[in-house]
């Protein structure tokens, strides 16, 4: 070694004498190791859980590069479970027991968290919600073996909409292929019709990961159909450096830039767009690129930026009042009170609500007791939330009715577009519904390939009740 090594050999004298001599420090170390061994033994002990509790794991990330988006989401989830416990005493009397595990958005830690939490509680995990497309891919096979449903609301693998092949995956409320279709519908409306799309230039600025790549095949299909010019532009994780991408965009002058970012990438995209004077109102983010932390740091530069909505947007609804009354008034809230009602907080809440309702549905069939993942899967597949039920739950105006079935694990594919006005998000469009005739062939093709690769015999959905 060229550096330092020689000096080390020449000079063995220590610059500062250590307090302990060799032997003492050895003893100390042994004791430390012993303590560690004892502690590690204890760590495997599962706490005695009451028999009438339903366990739900929360795979969250409150630290690291994506914490900015992970924190409000996890808060929404935790607050809703607390609400159900505090206000109703659980789901039909079955209390929800939940535990968070920090994944840091890393796949291997996500797998560790899943393994750690899947067996907790009297019946194991009811379902798992990893909030990361990468972890979803890694868990898809494991959850099928373990018979635990995996809810990926608004993310995950788009082909898993096909419940015949992906029995345990539930990409509720919309996949990225639906999102791509909705985004193009909105662009078409802005330019004055689908026929006007011909010859337009649309770029996709995406996070270079399974998440960001997911919409590409759909957009390619749409580009061919409507004759617009489609350019995917990757941004390397975590997305702090986008200057060259935006310099290309400045030269290329696409008519629209779709943003498929997460974490720091969103905010940086908005700032860099301002730095090259690309009009922000020609940018359309996916529903993961349209929350407050994405635009607030950019200040005035973000005004005009648009993003899809996964049905709901920001703002407070009756359910928020309930949460403030039953959770925050008792000091059990997870979030800063000022951040209740933010986009990602609401999304976490919606996600928790759908899970809870699936358990409630499953309880109709299997009884009012803690249920296994397999039973909850039935509940999810038969979930049917009507307008009236959503009103009862306090989600009126946030969500449209949703109905899941064996062949359709997505349930609803509606979205709107919102725009940032410098202070808040404003809804600027009507409802769009993704055109199934466009997404469906791709779903069938890719899921059939998956089934063939994995030797899965697709279920016959006509026979499922």
């Amino acid at each position, binding site marked *: *070694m060229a*550096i330092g090594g020689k000096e080390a050999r020449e000079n063995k004298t220590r610059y500062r004498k250590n307090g302990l001599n060799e032997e003492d420090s050895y003893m100390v170390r042994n004791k430390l190791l012993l303590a560690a061994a004892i502690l590690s033994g204890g760590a495997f002990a599962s706490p005695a859980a009451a028999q009438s509790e339903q366990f739900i794991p929360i795979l969250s990330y409150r630290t690291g590069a994506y914490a900015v988006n992970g924190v409000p989401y996890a808060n929404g989830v935790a607050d809703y479970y607390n609400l159900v416990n505090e206000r109703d005493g659980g789901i039909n009397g079955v209390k929800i027991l939940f535990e968070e595990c920090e994944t840091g958005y890393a796949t291997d830690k996500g*797998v560790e968290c899943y393994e750690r939490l899947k067996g907790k509680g009297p019946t194991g995990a009811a379902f798992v919600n990893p909030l990361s497309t990468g972890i979803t891919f890694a868990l898809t096979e494991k959850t099928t073996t373990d018979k635990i449903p995996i809810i990926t609301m608004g993310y995950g693998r788009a082909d898993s909409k096909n419940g015949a092949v992906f029995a345990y995956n539930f990409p509720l409320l919309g996949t990225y292929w639906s999102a791509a279709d909705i985004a193009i519908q909105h662009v078409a409306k802005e330019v004055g019709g689908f026929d006007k799309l011909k010859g337009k230039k649309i770029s996709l600025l995406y996070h270079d990961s399974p998440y960001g*790549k997911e919409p590409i095949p759909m957009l390619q299909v749409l580009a061919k159909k409507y004759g617009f010019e489609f350019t995917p532009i990757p941004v390397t994780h975590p997305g702090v450096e986008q200057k060259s991408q935006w310099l290309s965009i400045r030269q290329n002058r696409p008519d629209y830039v779709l943003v498929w970012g997460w974490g720091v990438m969103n905010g940086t995209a908005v700032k860099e767009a301002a730095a090259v004077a690309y009009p922000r109102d020609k940018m359309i983010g996916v529903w993961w690129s349209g929350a407050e932390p994405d635009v607030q740091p950019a200040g005035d530069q973000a005004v005009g930026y648009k993003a899809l909505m996964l049905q709901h947007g920001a703002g407070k609804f009756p359910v928020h009042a309930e949460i403030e009354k039953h959770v925050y008034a008792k000091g059990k809230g997870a979030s800063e009170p000022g951040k209740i009602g933010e986009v990602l907080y609401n999304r976490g809440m919606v996600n928790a609500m759908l899970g809870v309702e699936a358990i409630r549905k499953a309880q109709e069939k299997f009884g009012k007791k803690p249920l296994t993942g397999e039973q909850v899967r039935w509940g999810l597949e038969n979930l049917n939330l009507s307008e009236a039920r959503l009103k009862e739950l306090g989600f009126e105006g946030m969500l449209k009715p949703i109905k899941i079935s064996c062949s359709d694990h997505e349930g609803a594919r509606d979205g709107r577009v919102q725009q940032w006005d410098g202070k808040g998000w404003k809804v600027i469009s009507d409802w769009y519904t993704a055109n199934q005739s466009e997404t469906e062939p791709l779903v069938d093709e890719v899921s059939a390939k998956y089934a063939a*690769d994995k030797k899965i015999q697709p279920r016959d959905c006509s026979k499922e009740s």
Partner: protein
Amino acid sequence: MLYREAGQFKTTYAEDMAIFPIRQDRMALAILLGIAFIGVPLLADFDIWPFGSDYLLRAILLPFLILALAAIGVNILVGYCGQISLGSGAFMAIGAYSAYKLGTGVHIPLDWLGFAISIPPLPVLLSILLGGLAAAVVGILFGIPSLRIKGLYLAVATLAAQFFFDWVFLRVPWFTNYAPSGSVSAPTLDFFGLNVGTPIERYMLCLIFVTVFAFLAKNLVRGNLGRQWMAIRDMDIAAELIGIRPLYAKLTAFAVSSFIIGVAGALWAFVYLGSWEPLAFSIERSLQLLFMVIIGGLGSIMGSFIGAAFILILPIMLNLLPTQLGVPLSTETITHLEFIIFGSLICYLLIKEPHGFARLISIGKEKLRLWPFPY
């Protein structure tokens, strides 16, 4: 009293050259292997806590074994040959993706030549080993600069491999069989007609791999090649003067090390993750492996295991602890504390014993020899 080689006479050259010349060492190893090969499966079979739960097998032992194997690979390069590498993650990725391609069938259309190269899907075992081989070839390629660049400069140069292959596996759809998301999943794990699916089967599979490679590595490093590597490590110019060819020694170290890391990468992808993306082999993985080697002890096969256990399990324990003890801390605080404590412990260990756990073991052995009459 217990650990003493007095009275163990070596009467043949073969005995003198044995891997483990001391009887007590052999017994300890036999017990360890016995526990690993027979004890753990039995405990798991009878559902004895904590071995009955999937968690220990799937989330602790499995990654531990695979990362220990990778750490052995890194140790050969860094610990035995003295070439610092921050690109280990890339070599794991090469192993994983090559094994994936070979396991699912390779098709290279060479239209301009008028034919195509097609290899049918190979058996899993073969594709894992060939994945290692592919990593070895690339390892040699990226080892060439080491003849000119040394020390920390080399470490940063190996980062070129890291970032380049991160990009290649993200960007070249051929490697992922044109999967739309760029995430691929492993073929079913069939070994000679035996389907490896349950956690305990996966554990046994990795254990066999690790044991075989650990013995091979242990043998290799004490042989001619290993001594060449160590000579290069200690002072490359002096080694060259006494007739060791740096080109040969360094490149073999890169090849052997990358081979083992590549096999570990393939196992990590196939057996542990099952479905993966390039981010699974990012720079963090490289740093983690380097930590394992340094905390475990540079130039020690046993140290690689201890280092892997320490670096992998400590953060998990730190993370589990507050919940288990019922301390009401938010996950956020726990994770930050985990970072702080983990970082401090690493610094503490490096200060107290810069040569890692392996040195502690040899000090321990020395003391045992004299025990109970140290003077």
